[in-house]
């Protein structure tokens, strides 16, 4: 039997990962960002508090699912009332879906009764790339010691259908409840779902 010994190396276009995603248990990378009221926020200034990061795009059907139903605003209100710092982060590039000026974002938040601590405008995608934010929404939770304790989806129903909010297991609320009670976070990493974050290409 003839065996033609071929060592064919089929290396297809190898994509390099531009940013390593932050892993649960890691120290959350520090950042400084400007909010829609022109105020600057530095993550490390919030040591001692839980911080939630919520990636946002007001035109994305998955974001709309959680805003038009009032689900996201309910979460923002509930957890900021309990002392949690909540940053909505907008990493859409100018011209891309979800990009907003400060005035447009303030108008949107007022209309939607959104209640985050602040909406950070990240048109260059710096904070987004730093955290490896993939989708809208994509949720991160940082504990008072500055460690990442949750990275992933908002809940366990990865659809754009608002009807799926009822009965969904909300990972963010569960993680915050557990961490605030001094317990380990049972589900700390999940696959984020939604639209791609519309970074500048």
């Amino acid at each position: 039997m003839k065996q033609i010994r071929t060592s064919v190396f089929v290396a297809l276009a190898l994509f390099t990962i531009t940013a390593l995603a932050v892993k649960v248990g890691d120290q959350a990378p520090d950042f400084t960002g400007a909010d829609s009221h022109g105020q600057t926020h530095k993550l490390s200034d919030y040591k001692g508090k839980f911080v939630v990061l919520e990636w946002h795009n007001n035109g994305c059907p998955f974001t709309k699912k959680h805003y038009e139903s009032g689900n996201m605003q309910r979460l923002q209100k509930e957890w900021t009332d309990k002392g949690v710092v909540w940053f909505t982060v907008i990493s859409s590039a100018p011209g891309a879906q979800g990009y907003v000026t400060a005035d447009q974002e303030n108008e949107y938040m007022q209309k939607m009764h959104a209640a985050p601590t602040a909406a950070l405008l990240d048109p260059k995608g710096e904070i987004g790339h730093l955290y490896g934010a993939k989708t809208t929404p994509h949720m991160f939770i940082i504990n008072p010691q500055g460690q990442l304790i949750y990275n992933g989806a908002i809940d366990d129903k990865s659809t754009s259908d608002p009807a799926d909010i009822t009965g969904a297991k909300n990972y963010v609320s569960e993680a915050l409840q557990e961490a605030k009670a001094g317990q380990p976070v049972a589900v700390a990493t999940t696959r984020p779902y939604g639209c791609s974050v519309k970074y500048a290409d």
Partner: protein
Amino acid sequence: MNSGALKTITRTMAALLLTLCGSSSAYPQAAKAQHAHLSLISEQTSAASGTAQWMGLRFQLDPGWHIYWSNPGDSGEPPKVAWHLPGGFQAGDLQFPAPHRIADHGLTDYGYEGDVILLSKLTVPAGATSNKGEIGAAEIGADVRYLVCREVCVPGKDHVSLSLATGQNEKLSPRAELIRGAQARLPQPLPSHVYISATVRPEQMLITVSGTTTGMGQIIDFIPSDAQVIENSVRPLIFVDGAVSHIRVKKSEQLDHSPARLRGLLITSTKAYNVDVPVTPAKKTSQNASVPKHS
């Protein structure tokens, strides 16, 4: 006039109207227009008692727009269907053809562009024919929810239906050819005498394909069936050593444990094959040391 011609005219008029309106902004059109034309087709025009046949949910997509595979990849959502069937009829789970990779702002999704048909097996109960042998009709309806994307995503909701004749023998539909084409594009079981195994290392998983692989075509890709098992944006490295092929995929950075099984599609130059193998830890002495590493 048949409904197909009518739809074509309606669509042409809609396109003309959009052109006449002359809106230069892509976004408002994206929100209004549907970007996908859905229809329900079947293998037969009849629903003969005690038979089974394929139905096809056909998506004809506007250029550049896509829908998603059952594992959408890093973003997106697969289509979902709720069937409305006469008593005793059953529709099987949607069967998806092998998808393509779709690059999306640094992410990788799995889906389809152009003209795609998702299949479902329709089972007709033995009593579908009325005992008088009358000719009737079985109405098959489907409520479909889907996400169609091109830079932006638009959720779609549609009702499609089909009327099949009952009380008749089986009769091929003019759409049977399309259904056969869709069947041919479904992933297939691996040929017998092809062996596949998977091992896991801290950062990668290695799939080894050996045995009688002639006729399978050249292996060009591996696409995972489960979300969050491998890094979608890192193309597999494929190393062919004689009759043995090694496929190195990068484990998901978000995976905190090794999966018990690796499920996915082995894509070759000619076909797609279903793979479902247990994952075992890599042995220390391995011939695979020569396989180039991901940089």
